């Protein structure tokens, strides 16, 4: 008997639902509402806790063939790229209110493009820069001028 991916996921979800379940009983109730704000969440959480526990159980009982350990063989997956991409998006989201939409977007589109496929020649770099600039300018004009969405201004740049 060994624990697999599903079992770990189940355990994590079980832990989350139990912690929140305790929290849901501590919520204050209002005088005019017959059931408190914790009533419905406690139903959902009990349901989730039960289902998660069953998932763990199901995983533990599952017969596992050891050969399937490298289930991911097939095409090689580059999880490194995913982590980098998430990091770049994270940086974009943080910088957006500081640098303003236009500046941050140029940097973001440029950086993510370079991370996903590094340009080899000077010409490719120019294309990359043009796309970055184009995306920022075009989306800015469409949203700000025509869709009347005021995009974030930079707290540092005022732009």
């Amino acid at each position, binding site marked *: 008997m060994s624990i697999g991916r599903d079992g770990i996921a189940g355990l994590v979800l079980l832990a989350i639902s139990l912690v929140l379940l305790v929290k849901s009983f501590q919520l204050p109730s209002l005088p005019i509402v017959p059931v408190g704000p914790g009533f419905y969440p406690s139903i959902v959480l009990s349901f989730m806790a039960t289902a998660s526990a069953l998932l763990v159980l199901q995983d533990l009982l599952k017969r596992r063939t050891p050969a399937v350990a490298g289930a991911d063989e097939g095409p090689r997956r580059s999880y490194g790229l995913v982590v980098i991409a998430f990091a770049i998006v994270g940086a974009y989201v943080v910088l957006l209110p500081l640098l303003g939409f236009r500046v941050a*977007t140029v940097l973001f589109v440029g950086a993510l493009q370079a991370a996903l496929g590094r340009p080899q020649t000077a010409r490719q770099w120019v294309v990359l820069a043009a796309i970055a600039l184009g995306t920022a300018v075009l989306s800015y004009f469409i949203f700000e001028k025509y869709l009347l969405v005021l995009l974030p201004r930079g707290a540092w740049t005022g732009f």
Partner: protein
Amino acid sequence: MLDLLANGLVNIAQWKYLLPLLAGTFVGVIGGSLPGVTITMTVIVVLPFTYGLDPLAGLAAMTGVYVGGSTGGLIACCLLGIPGSPASIATTFDGFPMARNGEPGRAIWLGVWASVWGGLLGAFFLVFLTGPLAAIALEFGPWEYFSLFVLAMAMVAGLTESSLLKGLISTAIGLLITVVGHDPIGSVPRFTFGSEFIGSGFSFLPVLIGIFAFAQIMTDLEKLNQPRGQAAESLIGVRLERFSHLKVNLEIFKQPFLLAWSTIVGLIIGILPAIGGSASSVMAYDQAKKFSKTPERFGKGHPEGIIASEASNNANVSGSLMTIMAFGIPGDAVTAVMLGAMTIHGIQSGPLFISQNPDIAYGIYAAYILAHPCMLLICFVLMPLMLRVTSVRMAVLAPVVLVLCVVGAYALNNTMQSVYVLLMFGVVGYVLVKLGFPLAPLILGLILGDQIEINLVRAIMTDANPWLFLTRPISGLLLLAAAASVVLAIWQHLRHRNRVAEEEPDF
């Protein structure tokens, strides 16, 4: 009645109405096709332009946006695997696999034509059944709504082939997300851990875009470094297949029952307020799968999945229009804006609306009907351009799509809060997909979570007797159907278990 409708059609066919209708439909298709730009947002954008027009012209433009947007969403579904608007979620399930199998044209046109036929079939109901059908919706008290939502979730949790348990957990996660933040009854902060960020809650749209967009794009990025040749440089192969519109239409009409039933599901959900196109798409998809002779092909590019989802989301529009025309009650945010436009023009909505303003009422019917050929025309013109999206390299497409997602989330509330939520749930969505949890039940939980809680508490506040959920006839029947649906799902699951090997979760 028919002569009134004929008058309406002749009336709308004038340039001063046809032009706004065409423009509205165009804007709707574009808005719908951009992930993160919802139909609601598009219709709000169109609203100021309609102030200057005469009332019917403005309403025609908005009807066009609504119809165009409900269709436009499928383009992103099929080509990017991200719902362009929430109303076309279920189109992603089969549209994207079909496009990946080298048939993007077939996937899109199946969707467009299904939209047209579903929408026109819906128009039939709209014109003839507006009064009686909307009256039924009014009889729905909190008990009935609660039971209806439970039924919806019971049906969708069974959607997944891999694990019913994971489907149920996904639903619970979706429901849990809506619980976080201030409670909808007394605004007591729940599970906020003292944080203002969590306290504001997670609104539906950023969560949806985050989960879908990131799960999709990041899964694609995993494959980016593969040896050239089979590399998924762009999302789908660059070459477009040849397909015939006649064949696509035959494919739709080969199964009249599927088309009719999807339309009716969409219509009913449209009539009931506060549910909306996303639920109708998912529920029609589930129904199609339940009734299908080939349920195992769903999720792998099955035409039935696309037809069900797209026919139902356009029929949903006619259902929402029914409710707003008969009672002046907006079924969703889009019709709420339309209602706002009517009052701004001094038109009183409500039960007297059709008899007091027959020109406008039948004008709206006519606009709804004519929006479909307009939409078809626009799709013919735009599609070659739209299909070019497929030939864009992933390295270029990913950042651009992500920028649109960020802007879409930001524009929702004009706050950075939504953007943070977007990113956070992007991570959550990606992790869940990697762990093999299906996303559709989660999304439905997310859509219905608030409403389930509110209606549950309303029912208890109105009458303390819990047995009313079972003794009120409509509510009791709905709950019975929910129980039957779960039993059916377990039975189907057991039957399929031996046949369907568990697959590597791939999006």
